[in-house]
């Protein structure tokens, strides 16, 4: 399953927890989110790539009280089946939920 996942935790700032197989995931992440505004939820498809953002499904905040967002750049074939934010929640979130549960309140590095 190939996707980039960017998020932050209670005490750690934005970082990539999945690189999507890219040596440096920042350029493809930037390209995918370039025209997306800062709304808490967002969805955009360009060709076969999907960029999607949603707030943490468990409503977790960081230590400054800001809601935690999760951002994904999803590549095929997973992206073929995701057409909106709800679809991303259904298909992607179960793949990372347990991992996030273990790292959100500790430093993942």
């Amino acid at each position, binding site marked *: 399953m190939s996707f980039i996942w960017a998020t*932050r935790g209670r005490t*750690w700032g*934005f*970082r*990539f927890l999945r690189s999507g197989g890219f040596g*440096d995931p*920042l350029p493809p992440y930037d390209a995918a989110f370039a025209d997306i505004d800062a709304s808490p939820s967002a969805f955009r498809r360009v060709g076969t790539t999907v960029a999607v953002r949603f707030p943490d499904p468990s409503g977790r905040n*960081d230590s400054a009280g*800001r809601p935690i*967002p999760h951002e994904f750049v999803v590549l095929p074939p997973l992206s073929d089946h995701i057409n909106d934010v709800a679809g991303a929640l259904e298909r992607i979130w179960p793949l990372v939920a347990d991992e996030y549960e273990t790292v959100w309140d500790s430093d993942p590095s």
Partner: protein
Amino acid sequence: MSSNKVLEQHIAVFGESGSGKTVMLSSFYGSEQEPLNIKKGAFNVVAENASQGTHLHQNYLGMKNSGTVPEATRFASTTYRFILKFKGETEAKRLKAKPFDALRLVWHDYPGEWFEQDVSGPEEERRRIDAFRALLGSHVALLLVDGQKFLENVGEEERYLKSLLSNFRNSLVLLRDDLLEDGKPLVTFPRIWVIALSKADLLPDLDVHGFKELVIEKAGSEIVELRTVLGGLAESEAALSVGEDFVLVSSAKFSTDAIEVTQRIGIDLILPMASVLPFERHLRWAQADKLTKKVAVKLIGNAEVVAAALGAASNIVAVLMGKRNKLAGAVGLALSQLTPKLEDAIKSAGAKLEAADAAAVTKQQNLAATLDGFRKDLDEAEEKAILVRSAG
């Protein structure tokens, strides 16, 4: 200066993730867009990039109307340029002597985690170095102490303060070779590092003197170490104030269900701190002979422009501008003669501007009145125990 009509002042706000950098920037810009502030001021603050202005205003209105804080800044820094456009018609005769007719404030916002954790890869590393270079080319720096974390560590403030200051120091040490070109110390460098308590509304009983005492008592050694590292980056390292100026900042009053943006502390000091504070300090350093010739020409040349603007309405501008050549030629002698007179001239110019009516005066007078107003804002903030300036 990028133009002979614009005085450009850069402010560097250093703070960890969540310490309030973006909120502070949004509060600064948003409050300047309030209809009441637009009407009463002698100048308008305009974002040079309209989209950035809209974004910051949106952040501000989100806090004001919906109680939502701005999204965290991620993976990139953004440079914001604001122009202070002075109102009033320009008088043709005075135009030639006028040193500038606008003041530009440049403010760099970036992810605070760049001080705390590794970057994600080469692209983010490049952006971080570029951002730090820009920050270290500023005229004044604010080092944010997060009021929330301060509160969470009551009685053990040293744990948080030592960690915060060490993180800054270590980041600078690690990036040192990338920040200096050919290892040469920087001439344009933030020489005033003000320690600012952000989210000061959370600590209503703490005035700036109490804050200063706590920081020095609990983390004096870390301040000395930070100063040593900063001194190694700057030419004329004697001309450096690190942890000698303190200020309280609150971008709004935050409660569980509302954000009261009118309850601000210290945000109105941003422009005075960016423009007049360096000017005052540079003059003092010049008098104390703390500047090398190269740095003196750079700093005092800039100070002279501010002085000329302040003095424009009282006809001292020609005298000051006439001294410019002397300054460059025989800097030591000229400075000793010039600097006391500059201070006197500015004070007397300011007194004449006190009754200026924004609706009637010229752009030049508005500019001079505004700068003089900034000088008074700093004095008043000290009287109210929001700001304490270095005595050195």
